[in-house]
């Protein structure tokens, strides 16, 4: 029996409550370094759910990554890696859009030392990049009424742009992201808490909201974003 199989057998026993505390700790150590074992646990739960005659409708949903992120923990999920790999191959047009965003973000970051004018400048640069003059306006307006302060603006290599906000009244943080749809397919189901779509003449972008705020606030942000996006589309 390979090491992996031996550990999997222990995970199987753990799922039945048949493992000692010592063995449980060892299994957790193994899962920590081998994300496939975490995936194995997940699949085990699916079959267990089926055997209990419970619904499998929500089995593909996964909030675990979002929960760990919100709590400041992180895991290497092979499913996320696999999706990234598949997504990378998908759409060259998306890649071009992402490149535009990357260029824009590079430019935008030079304005980081001027937080007061930053949103307007970012808006301008994003508008240039995705050829939708009011697109940043949608993001800015999405936080209307929340009294949120923009903290930082970040990008990732896939071209997503993320604005991080702080609610001074509560100290809570959240972020609003703009991503080309091709690179946010995994985001829609795993990463972001809430998403909305912004259609521009150059394609569809995803606006997502996640962070340490309530579901109601996230919904409010997206409703704001949708409202302005819809107005733009008229």
């Amino acid at each position, binding site marked *: 029996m390979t090491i992996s*199989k031996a550990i999997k057998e222990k995970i199987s026993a753990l799922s*039945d409550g048949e493992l000692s505390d010592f063995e449980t700790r060892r299994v957790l150590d193994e899962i920590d370094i081998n994300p496939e074992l975490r995936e194995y646990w997940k699949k085990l739960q699916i079959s267990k759910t089926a055997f209990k005659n419970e619904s499998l409708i929500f089995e593909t949903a996964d909030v675990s990554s979002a929960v760990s992120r919100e709590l400041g923990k992180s895991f290497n999920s092979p499913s996320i890696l696999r999706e990234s790999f598949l997504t990378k191959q998908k759409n060259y047009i998306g890649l071009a859009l992402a490149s535009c965003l990357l260029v824009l973000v590079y430019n935008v970051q030079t304005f980081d030392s001027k937080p007061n004018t930053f949103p307007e400048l970012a808006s301008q640069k994003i508008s240039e990049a995705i050829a939708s003059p009011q697109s940043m306006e949608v993001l800015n307006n999405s936080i209307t009424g929340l009294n949120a302060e923009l903290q930082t603006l970040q990008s990732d290599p896939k071209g997503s742009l993320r604005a991080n906000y702080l609610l001074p009244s509560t100290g809570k943080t959240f972020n609003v992201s703009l991503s080309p749809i091709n690179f946010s397919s995994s985001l829609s189901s795993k990463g972001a808490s809430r998403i909305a779509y912004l259609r521009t003449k150059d394609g569809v972008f995803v606006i997502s909201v996640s962070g340490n705020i309530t579901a109601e606030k996230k919904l409010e942000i997206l409703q704001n974003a949708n409202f302005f996006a819809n107005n733009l589309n008229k």
Partner: protein
Amino acid sequence: MKDIKKKISNKEIDLSLVRRAKKGDYRAFDLLVLKYQSRVIATAFKFVKEKQLAEDIAQEAFIKSYKSIDSFREESSFYTWVYRIAVNTAKNYLVSSKRRDELVISDLSTDDSFYPEKLDVDSPQEILKASELRDLIFETLSSLGEETRTALSLREFDGLSYEEIAEIVQCPVGTVRSRIFRGREMIEEVVGKHMDKNLINQNTKIS
């Protein structure tokens, strides 16, 4: 008569993970999230009738439960505890968003066997996929060798402990553990292929 370890309750199964989580081991808590997330989402869905929102509520419920896990006194099962948190989170959401009229008043039992398929799920494709997956799992179970199938069935359907199964089929506990694992491996392969197929379909649709 030999004292055989009886049926293991869900509460007992989770206990080692819960206690580790209480000591700050997030990995243990993560396994509990993976175990119960679909059920918690299904519970939230009963209230809000929207999948994405249900996921948000489930997410919040797990975050709240981790932050307050020290207050979990192990009198109920971990799932029951998280279930209550999820229900309260969903109710609070509905109240705060002035959607009281959509509140499902009916008793949402903590009974393990409930069927969200019976609710107004507006995605026939998802129901179909779930149904296909269930059929595949049961077909695979049926195709297992008798010893493997018996051990796995006694565990999954009758909830018997390994020790009790060993007594019934008259073999060592270690053999029971191996047989159950072997059966699950076969099923895991089927589940994995099904999930990969759906993932490819999803990506194809997106592009």
